[in-house]
């Protein structure tokens, strides 16, 4: 791989990974805030409105970071991936414009009203503004998934003599089966980040013995929604996604699972390090026949290993893909256990005084971020060596006129800038959490960014 291509890949990987740390919380918190507002609207219990306000503050800071790191993403298709952009504009240009037109306008219009317009809008109006922000953020996610799904599983297109892709069916593109499955799976992932964040803050306050009423409200909502999201994350969405991948990207599944040789009654590798040079797994801990069962529903089915495919079509970085997938799947399983335990304790009325569970919830905070990132790395390193699966190789897509020196310059620029953003984000969110969901705060430090308050 030439150096410029590597830098283009690194830059996209870095900027998208950093960016997605924010939208996953935005998309995870938005429905939770709507739930809090709905409970408030139906019961009139001000505790839930205060909870919604507190989380709206966190949401606001998070949203700003998502917006500013999101802008570069759309432009990088052109700056770093010019050859790819040139041939795919007719297809994936569409969901990208639709994201701007249908969701960003909606989100940007109602976010300010939601964050700072409660008095003016009234109770019901404010609920609607929250719903609009929720709808905008989830629509935005859908269009991005449609874009990625087309690269993973191209549908509804024709290719002209110049190699350019064109859409042949508008609905075919939007309702790509890969997109629908991936969307369901991804949104459960975002919800997982949201519920673990909310549960962690609740657990933190209980352990610190502050804001006890608020903390219990956070935990109640987070644990109930969380148990459902974590289960659906694995079954049916993760299961369906895996089966769909096995049908359409079998070489990727083989690499994810570390299955170097085709086997009947293929085992699933739970632990072990892939040795791509010698095509084996070191010190493997395996469960026999399970992979065959997961993919085909019988323990004897034959699963294609990497040796069934030409090496040039193998994912470029097999160990990274293998680890990403195993980290995602392992954490997903842990999340089910944690949330099931927490919801059981909640049902028994013991969650709020079970300190070890509160500690677990607190310490889990970073894990959904890792799981979501690893999930996306599974999808995208699994797509390699293709940009458009089976049709356009990654080596055929980058900007030929942008050399490695310029690529490194801008990559370093992004790293420096994003480092500062990360510090600012952690500082402001920590401050918000330390301050807590108290009713009135000192003037000037009040609720988020009063520029949008005017």
């Amino acid at each position, binding site marked *: 791989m030439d150096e410029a291509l590597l830098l283009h890949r690194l830059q996209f990987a870095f900027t998208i990974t950093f960016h997605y740390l924010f939208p996953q919380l935005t998309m995870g918190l938005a429905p939770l805030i709507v739930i809090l507002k709905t409970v408030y609207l139906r019961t009139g219990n001000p505790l839930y409105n205060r909870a919604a306000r507190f989380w709206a503050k966190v949401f606001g800071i998070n949203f700003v970071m998502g917006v500013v790191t999101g802008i570069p993403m759309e432009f990088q298709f052109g700056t770093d991936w010019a050859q790819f952009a040139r041939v795919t504009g007719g297809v994936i240009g569409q969901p990208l414009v639709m994201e701007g037109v249908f969701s960003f306008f909606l989100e940007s219009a109602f976010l300010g009203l939601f964050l700072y317009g409660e*008095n003016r809008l009234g109770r019901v109006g404010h609920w609607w503004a929250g719903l609009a922000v929720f709808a905008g953020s989830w629509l935005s996610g859908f269009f991005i998934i449609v874009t990625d799904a087309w690269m993973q599983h191209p549908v509804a297109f024709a290719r002209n003599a110049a190699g350019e892709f064109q859409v042949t069916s508008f609905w075919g593109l939007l309702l790509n089966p890969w997109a629908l499955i991936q969307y369901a799976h991804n949104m459960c992932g975002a919800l997982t980040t949201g519920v673990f964040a909310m549960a962690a803050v609740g657990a933190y306050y209980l352990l610190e013995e502050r804001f006890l009423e608020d903390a219990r409200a956070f935990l109640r909502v987070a644990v109930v929604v969380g148990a459902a999201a974590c289960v659906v994350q694995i079954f049916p969405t993760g299961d369906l996604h895996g089966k769909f991948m096995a049908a359409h990207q079998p070489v990727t599944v083989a690499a994810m699972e570390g299955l170097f040789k085709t086997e009947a009654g293929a085992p699933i590798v739970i632990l072990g390090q892939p040795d791509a040079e010698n095509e084996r797994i070191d010190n493997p801990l395996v469960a026999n026949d399970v992979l065959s069962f997961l993919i085909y529903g019988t323990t004897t089915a034959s699963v294609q290993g990497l040796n069934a495919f030409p090496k040039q079509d193998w994912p470029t970085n097999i160990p990274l893909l293998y680890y990403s997938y195993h980290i995602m799947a392992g954490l997903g399983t842990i999340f089910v256990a944690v949330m099931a335990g927490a919801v059981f304790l909640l049902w028994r009325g013991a969650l709020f005084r079970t300190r070890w569970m509160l500690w677990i919830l607190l310490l889990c905070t970073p894990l959904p971020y890792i799981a979501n990132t690893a999930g996306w790395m599974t999808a995208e390193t699994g797509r390699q060596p293709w940009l458009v699966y089976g049709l356009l190789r990654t080596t055929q897509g980058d900007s030929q006129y942008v050399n490695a020196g310029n690529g490194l310059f801008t990559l370093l620029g992004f790293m420096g800038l994003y480092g500062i953003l990360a510090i600012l984000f952690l500082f402001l969110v920590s401050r918000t959490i330390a301050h807590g969901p108290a009713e009135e*705060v000192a003037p000037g430090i*009040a609720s988020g*960014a*009063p*520029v949008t*308050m005017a």
Partner: protein
Amino acid sequence: MLLTWFLLVAIMLAAYVVLDGFDLGVGVLHLFLARTEEERTILIRTIGPVWDGNEVWLLAGGGTLYFAFPLLYASGFSGFYLPLMMVLWLLILRGIGIELRMHLDTPVWRGLFNGCFGISSLLLTVFYGAALGNVIRGVPLQRHGYFFLPLWTDWKVGPNPGILDWYTVIAGLLAAIALALHGANYAALKTTGELNRRARLAAARLWPALVAVTALSLAATLFIRPDLLDNYQRLPVLYAIPALVAGSLFGAWRLGRNGRERAAFLCSSAYLALMLAGAAAAVYPNLLLSATDPSLNITVFNAHSGEHSLAVGLIWWSFGMALAAGYFVFVYRMFRGKIAGKLDGHGY
């Protein structure tokens, strides 16, 4: 169909320039107009609820360009790689500048984010102007439609240009002055009292500079690109555009002096839109001019997407933009009128 999409992209970019233009103008001017932190907060609150929505026009316009004219998007964005990345960084800095400044009320925090917001706004206006200058001057397109421009070479307009040369610097200066004046008109419209007086004074002082640089840039354009008059000669009705530019400039001065803030703001909006219309009319059907060989120009004919995509696109695009227009009307109505001096914690 191709002309339609050319116009749609042009309209979206013009909407971006007019709408985010006043945000940027206010961003530049707050450094000079505000004497106290409270005044600064009022100025920034004039754009607070709308700047993010205004910036979406850039994303939607850029996306539309990608969708309708992929070759232009691929060639232009990779060719203008360096300045575009800097624009992205500046957009990030502008966004966090305006959104994070109110989180803490300490002199260092405020100073940092105020400066961040003001300086990135100023540099953005210069970059946007220079970008337009590059498109009009032309770039050294290679056979497959790609190019790469360094930030500068010898500052001359020639076969080996850089992003910055004497011509594009004039264009950058023009954009900075025009958007600052536009921002001053907007600030005057949204404020009262002393701030309002200073904003109007700023608009009045910027006006002669804008007239001079507009004339200078027009002359410079005709000097380096006399062929840009071809469309005008073929279709003389287009000469109405420069006439209207002159009219809107005059209106901005006259109406501003008479205290008709809304009308003056509409004049500076019209000025920006008309300048872009004039440029669009001059280059059509070209999208990106070659600095060396006109046969290498990127045009609507060689850069467009498939007919089916474009035809279907027109349907959902119209539907989506109608919705977006509805949100804009709603938000601007919620936010109409002048900003009161009082700083309160909750609500608009």
